[in-house]
């Protein structure tokens, strides 16, 4: 809690109390947005540190775009606070918030050249002609578009337009960069390249960024932290490793990365290890923090599973169950096996390496994995 009190000579004694850490660049508190009967954003709160790259990740309708638009000032909040660089901004229109926005369809001004598009914000700030030329040139260099300044947007490819949109958004050094699924319209190769370029650029300029996407790979590769959203709420917020290895809800476990979620019930708990009985048959062990017994979901990622020809019992720090291979799909760098454990279908991802056994449909196999490679999700 910070308290600022004015001196006795002032007519008014000011007391400003904040609960946010003074190092937070953006703070969103209890934000709510309702469209008719739907709570598009349902009591959302989070902080973003200066220079941090935070991604709002979720399926369509999760509220991530609405949330981003509220931060930008394009939608009014029905309740809640938005604090940007120490200032309450939820009552301010977008043009007073000092934000840079990259829209999904870029929204480049078609009647202006690339130069004028990028210079647009600078001209609004009454910056001298020479300085504008210099800064626009720098920005275009940073996005590798030097030499295209006199073209019109319609003469550029999708990737080039995307870069102009980016240059236009950061050239005037806004407090924060907001990006709404900017790579959706690009093909896979270009998209992956742009992901790396955007991230590198963001780190280089050091600008606080909030990024929206439904693509979890994109979120994982680019972000410092990810907020996974579902039905207007943040289910979990953490760095990519946290979300992948320690998902706290079933939704996050299923949405981030591939997963096998098996119904089970917790039987015993001792020394940080639980023993569960899988509904589909058999027992398994994993690490857990609490001792709550009863039904839960057992999570094992496909790449953590191992198939062997020799059937063994699970012992020590290894879980093992017999299974039957239902299907094998060769993907190139790996092979996906669908195996049945009891009555449940489990996906196994095996990287294709010399010496790895290939299994055909119908074969019996031993499914094993380390205790540390699985977990409970409620």
């Amino acid at each position, binding site marked *: 809690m910070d308290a600022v009190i004015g001196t006795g000579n002032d007519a008014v004694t000011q007391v400003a109390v904040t609960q946010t850490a003074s190092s937070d660049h953006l703070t969103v508190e209890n934000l709510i947005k309702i469209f008719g009967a739907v709570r598009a954003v349902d009591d959302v709160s989070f902080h973003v540190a200066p220079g941090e790259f935070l991604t709002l990740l979720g399926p369509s309708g999760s509220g991530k775009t609405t949330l981003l638009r509220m931060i*930008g*000032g*394009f939608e009014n909040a029905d309740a809640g606070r938005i604090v940007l660089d120490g200032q309450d901004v939820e009552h301010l*229109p*977008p*043009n007073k918030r000092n*934000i*840079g*926005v990259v*829209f*999904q*369809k870029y*929204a*480049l*001004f*078609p*009647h202006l050249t690339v130069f004028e598009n990028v210079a*647009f*914000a600078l001209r*609004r*700030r009454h910056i001298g002609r020479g300085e504008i030329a210099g800064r626009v040139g720098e920005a275009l260099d940073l996005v590798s578009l030097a030499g295209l300044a006199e073209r019109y*947007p*319609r003469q550029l490819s999708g990737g080039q337009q995307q870069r102009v949109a980016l240059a*236009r*958004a950061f050239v*005037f050094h806004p407090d924060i960069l*907001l990006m709404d699924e900017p790579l959706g319209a690009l093909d896979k190769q270009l998209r992956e390249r742009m992901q790396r370029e955007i991230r590198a650029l963001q780190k280089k300029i050091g600008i606080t960024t909030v990024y929206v996407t439904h693509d979890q790979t994109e979120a994982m590769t680019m972000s410092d932290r990810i907020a996974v959203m579902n039905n207007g709420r943040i289910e979990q917020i953490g760095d990519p490793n946290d979300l992948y290895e320690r998902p706290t809800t079933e939704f996050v476990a299923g949405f981030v990365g591939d997963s096998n979620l098996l119904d089970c019930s917790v039987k015993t708990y001792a020394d940080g290890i639980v023993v569960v009985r899988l509904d589909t048959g058999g027992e398994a062990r994993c690490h857990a923090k609490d001792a709550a017994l009863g039904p839960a979901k057992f999570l094992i990622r496909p790449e953590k599973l191992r198939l062997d020809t020799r059937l063994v019992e699970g012992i020590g720090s290894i879980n093992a169950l017999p299974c039957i291979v239902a299907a094998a799909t060769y993907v190139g760098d790996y092979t996906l096996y669908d195996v049945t454990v009891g009555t449940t279908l489990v996906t196994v991802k095996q990287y294709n390496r010399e010496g790895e056994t290939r299994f055909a449909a119908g074969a019996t196999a031993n499914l094993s994995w380390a205790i540390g490679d699985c977990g409970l999700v409620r």
Partner: protein
Amino acid sequence: MIAPAALLVGVLFLLPIGRLFGMSLDYPNWTTAFFAGLFSSSVYVKSLWATLRVSVFVVLGCLMFGYPIGYLLATCRAKLRPYLALTVLLPFWTSILVRNFAWMYLLQRHGTVNELLQSIGIIDQPLRLMFNEFGVVLGMTNALLPFMVLPIYVAIQSQDEAFLEAAGSLGAGPSVAFLKVTFPLSLPGIYAGTLLVFATALGFFVTPALLGGGKVLVAATYITYEIEILLNWPGAAAASIVLLGIILIVVAAYMRVVTIERLSGADDAMA
């Protein structure tokens, strides 16, 4: 593929024009005397200047009133739009004769406008609002307004909202965003509306005839005079051909200045 359409254009359009051209050359006598006759006095030339002058003012009037209406129509709340559209379209669907008589009722010496202004005390004597170019321009502007409003409406309405949001995010307030983004992107609508209004105004007859009361001579009323009073069909045909030629030249010159691409807005705001 275009053969049926070409045939249609040929029969319905080129044939009558051809016949008119023949009439102006006094088929079967084949003389250019009637064309020369047009310029024997200054009457026809004066009527051409009047036509041009009136048409330019009508375009300006339509721009002045039509742009705000088109803008409002494009940016108003969806619930309001049908009612606003009706205020533009309802007169459009009313007979032009009826509308002109309504204007006469309003503008005449002891009409509504003069009575109102006199009763408030703004004027002592009734103003001459009719039977002059002012009344004609007013009536024609009213009649041709939808031709300006609709293209402008389309040009503004079709702009992606993201443009204005982008302008806002870059620091532009509402008026700056309008000046720098909405207005430039609506130019194709202005070009289209201007051309429609101007070309139509050049050939306009009913309003100059009624609200002009015989005192305003434009090309159309001149041609009518030649037919009805002087029974000079070849002369009237010659005058028509000259007017048609002028309109074609004006349109061609306009197209040069504003390329067809811009008119259809194909390259601009539709992205």
